[in-house]
């Protein structure tokens, strides 16, 4: 038997790391959501071209992306302990720090997503407020659409890369976390856009339903890969899985992330495709809740995961 006592008792570090809380989880959720909207709309316009018959729900939903991103960045700002030094993020670039990449990606997102919004809404009065703006942007539509896919994907991936780069925290230290965050982000982005769909166009609705089904299934696969990767890694990573399989986050993970976020939407969506039920807001709301729960649990569980390994080492 081993017994370890330590005189260290630094706030936010001991007994468990608790430096990042709800504000970081909210940012990760909103960032993923915006990434999803950008990837989906960028792909849509890249493949289809900018046409006048673009469904209204796409044109409306994409307006939210710069607003949601600003909200997310506000939460991130709240988390900074030395807010006056914020400007240093933009006076340096650290190639080894994913957080530094993220700071710059966030800045690129604004012009890229706003250009896409201008193109998709070029017949609306608030775009015509700025004389010839849409006309000037129009020739570059293909590049702008592609840039939305690329920067959106980078936004969705970098948060996962950031957390997975911490070798100190076994639950995060897994390369599959980045694709999990990206796929979950695209899934929440799609759910958010479906909230704007009025359900009148049946064909559109069925296409959306199939897309949603595919996204949920890919998220299931990504999560399976995430856990199989942890369970076949080093000992401290294997023991960190305990946090969501028997440990303190088990209930909330299985109920909110797996149940509400994946299985129930999967069931509802399948029934809807088979025309058994009609659900307009329930399914997207569940996917959004699941996405938020996933971020919150990953942020919290990752921080305590080092102690789990230490605890299991000490136990006989």
């Amino acid at each position, binding site marked *: *038997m*081993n*017994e*370890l*006592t*330590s*005189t*260290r*008792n*630094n*706030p*936010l*570090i*001991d007994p468990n*790391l608790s*430096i*990042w809380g709800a504000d970081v989880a909210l940012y990760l959720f909103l960032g993923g959501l915006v990434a999803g909207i950008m990837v989906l709309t960028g792909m849509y316009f890249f493949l289809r071209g900018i046409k006048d018959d673009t469904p209204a729900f796409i044109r409306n939903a994409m307006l939210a992306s710069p607003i949601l991103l600003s909200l997310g960045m506000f939460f991130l700002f709240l*988390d*900074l*302990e*030395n*807010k006056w*030094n*914020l400007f*240093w*993020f933009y*006076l*340096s670039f*650290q190639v*080894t*720090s*994913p*957080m*530094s990449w*993220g*700071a710059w990606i966030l800045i690129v997102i604004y012009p890229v997503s706003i250009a896409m919004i201008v193109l998709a809404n070029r017949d609306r009065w608030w775009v015509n407020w700025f004389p010839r703006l849409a006309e000037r942007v129009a020739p570059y539509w293909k590049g702008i659409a592609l840039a939305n896919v690329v920067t959106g994907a980078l936004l969705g991936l970098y948060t996962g890369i*950031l957390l997975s*780069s*911490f*070798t*100190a*925290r076994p639950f995060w230290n897994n390369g599959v976390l980045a694709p999990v965050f990206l796929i979950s982000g695209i899934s929440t982005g799609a759910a958010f856009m479906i909230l704007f769909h009025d359900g009148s166009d049946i064909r559109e609705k069925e296409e959306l339903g199939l897309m949603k089904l595919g996204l949920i299934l890919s998220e299931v696969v990504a999560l399976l890969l995430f856990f199989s990767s942890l369970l076949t890694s*080093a000992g401290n990573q294997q023991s960190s899985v305990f946090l969501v399989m028997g440990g303190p986050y088990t209930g909330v993970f299985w109920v909110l992330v797996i149940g509400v976020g994946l299985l129930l939407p999967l069931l509802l969506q399948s029934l809807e495709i088979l025309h058994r039920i009609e659900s307009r807001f329930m399914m997207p709301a569940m996917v959004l809740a699941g996405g938020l729960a996933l971020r919150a649990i990953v942020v919290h569980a990752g*921080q305590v995961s*080092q102690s789990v390994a230490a605890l299991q080492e000490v136990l006989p």
Partner: protein
Amino acid sequence: MAKPIRYVMVIESDKCVGCAACVFACKQENGVPEGFTRDWIEQEVRGVFPQLTMENRSQRCQHCDHPPCVYNCPTGASHIGKGGVTLVDRDWCTGCKACIAACPYDARYLHPEGFVDKCTFCNHRVEVGLEPACVTVCPTNCLHFGDVNDPNSKVRHMVRTRKWRTQKGELGTKPQLYWVESQ
């Protein structure tokens, strides 16, 4: 050509009695705020009574050769200073706490004034030819500090002639606290 200076600490943990003089010396020397600590004592008891062994360890930042805290700092506030020592530039620190998350030794803390703080190997003392405060006060002389690349240094001799271990080297940090047994 002579190798650059590389400050390391060699610790004879079996000589340590866990008196925490190093902890108090550090607090006094560096003005560490109340309730926080840059170095600390770990006491590990192994075995079942009456067959017990105990080890006291004076812990601090490991001043890694591959410091994950420096790699994860988004502004360059965390940097490698003279002698390979890991330092934080307070004026550049945004308090994002990525370095705290990155440190496998949990050696960093958030100073109440909003920047991240940690052991500096007392670089202000080392610059003028003194040893770190913790090393000078240790009553059993179990802490040894010096330049491991200096052919005449005590630490180089100890690292070359004795069995040593480092902590969590498997994480690729190349830590520079060497734990040896006394002779």
